[in-house]
């Protein structure tokens, strides 16, 4: 798997760059919103980033489940990499949402359902990183983070719905299907291209991060062997 990543990450990088540039060009040439003005352009980054942070968590859950089932290290490498990628997208989502929220809502932050769930998601990603760093034994760390990822996967919907019941002032979703389409035709192409660009970006980041994780683990194994030899 890592070999395959090493071979193809360059191609994915070029594809990401081209799609991202096309997307940005479309975003900048799209008409400004009659209510939101130019601030609406932030949403072309915010919405794909939000989808990618959830997708990263979904991927993490699958990788963690597969690791617990099969106990094969590549699944754990993918899990570790997807935590970092997911944390980056979640942070981007929160930051871009805040920048958009200030002119639109008059506040950087509101305790609405989706914002609160996203913040909890970010803390969860941080917790997963902290847990892995805090456990010495790599097998134990792999198992513990996999279990925590699955607990989080169960908890996130409960968190989301409990905060929805608690309070909500966020806009209804924009991708809700043709019946409830709330976005005009002009704005859809840049959003779609940006979504594709972010999926590619996520894939590329995952490949690069997985290579880094695999390389670090290989180095750590070598280091342990070297220490054992020099003592023995």
């Amino acid at each position: 798997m890592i070999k395959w990543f090493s071979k193809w990450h360059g191609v994915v990088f070029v594809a990401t760059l081209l799609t991202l540039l096309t997307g940005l060009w479309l975003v900048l040439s799209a008409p400004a919103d009659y209510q939101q003005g130019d601030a609406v352009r932030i949403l072309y980054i915010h919405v794909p980033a939000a989808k990618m942070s959830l997708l990263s968590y979904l991927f993490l859950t699958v990788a963690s489940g597969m690791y617990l089932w099969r106990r094969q290290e590549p699944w754990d490498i993918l899990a570790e990499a997807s935590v970092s990628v997911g944390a980056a997208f979640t942070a981007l989502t929160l930051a871009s949402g805040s920048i958009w929220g200030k002119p639109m809502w008059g506040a950087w932050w509101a305790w609405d359902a989706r914002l609160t769930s996203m913040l909890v998601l970010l803390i969860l990603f941080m917790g997963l990183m902290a847990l892995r760093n805090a456990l010495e034994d790599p097998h134990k760390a792999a198992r513990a983070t996999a279990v925590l990822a699955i607990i989080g996967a169960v908890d996130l919907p409960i968190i989301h719905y409990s905060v929805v019941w608690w309070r909500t002032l966020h806009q209804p979703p924009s991708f809700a299907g043709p019946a409830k389409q709330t976005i005009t035709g002009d704005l859809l192409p840049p959003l779609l291209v940006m979504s594709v660009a972010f999926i590619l970006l996520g894939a590329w980041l995952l490949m690069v991060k997985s290579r880094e994780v695999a390389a670090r683990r290989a180095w750590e194994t070598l280091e342990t062997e070297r220490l054992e030899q020099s003592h023995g």
Partner: protein
Amino acid sequence: MSKLLRAAYRIAWKDVVGDWRRRATLSSMLFFAIAVLVVFQVAFDPDRLEATRLLPGLLWVTILFTSLMGLGRVFQAEEEDGALEGLLLSAVPRGVLFLGKWSGNLLLTLLVELALLPLTLVLFNVDVWGQLPAIVGILLLGTLGLTGLGVLLAAMTQTARSRETLLALLLLPLTAPLLIAGVQALAALLQPGGEVEPWLRLLVIFDLVYLALAPWAFGWLVTE
């Protein structure tokens, strides 16, 4: 079946009695809870009306922080002399081991809550004594899920560096639904015309999910 339940009961009993005799967790949890109450009083200095409004949040925050103290010690006895390996080698399924550890912690936490509740009402001068049984019921429902998730996370972080910080970092965000439902249920109970039932339903969902998931997850955690 009864054999397995007896095994779980023995594990819980050993924890509770051991703790009772050493006065270890129980007393430190209780005094920590009182310290939190003092901090709240000094920080917010509520009058009678405000105290009634603040009571649900205050109770739950105190319980959450206090339970962190107890959870930090759930697996302390098992760390010494390979006691955990001993437990794992016994002919008892992992889920039953979890059940034992969980019910021990649940009992200790409930004891602290039972002492904490009248103390809070007295210290904050809130007159809701008439609703005491309902309040205890809501606290019990919340504590089931809180300790279920907490004991699982304690097992997860048991050998970690700076584990108590890590435990807090993991437990606090994951218990967000519990805190929302617990606080809202208490608030609805104390307000005339408040709707308690939807929040109770959320508490029950949280409890069922974690008490079904945690024994399995514990099994995955401790397998070698």
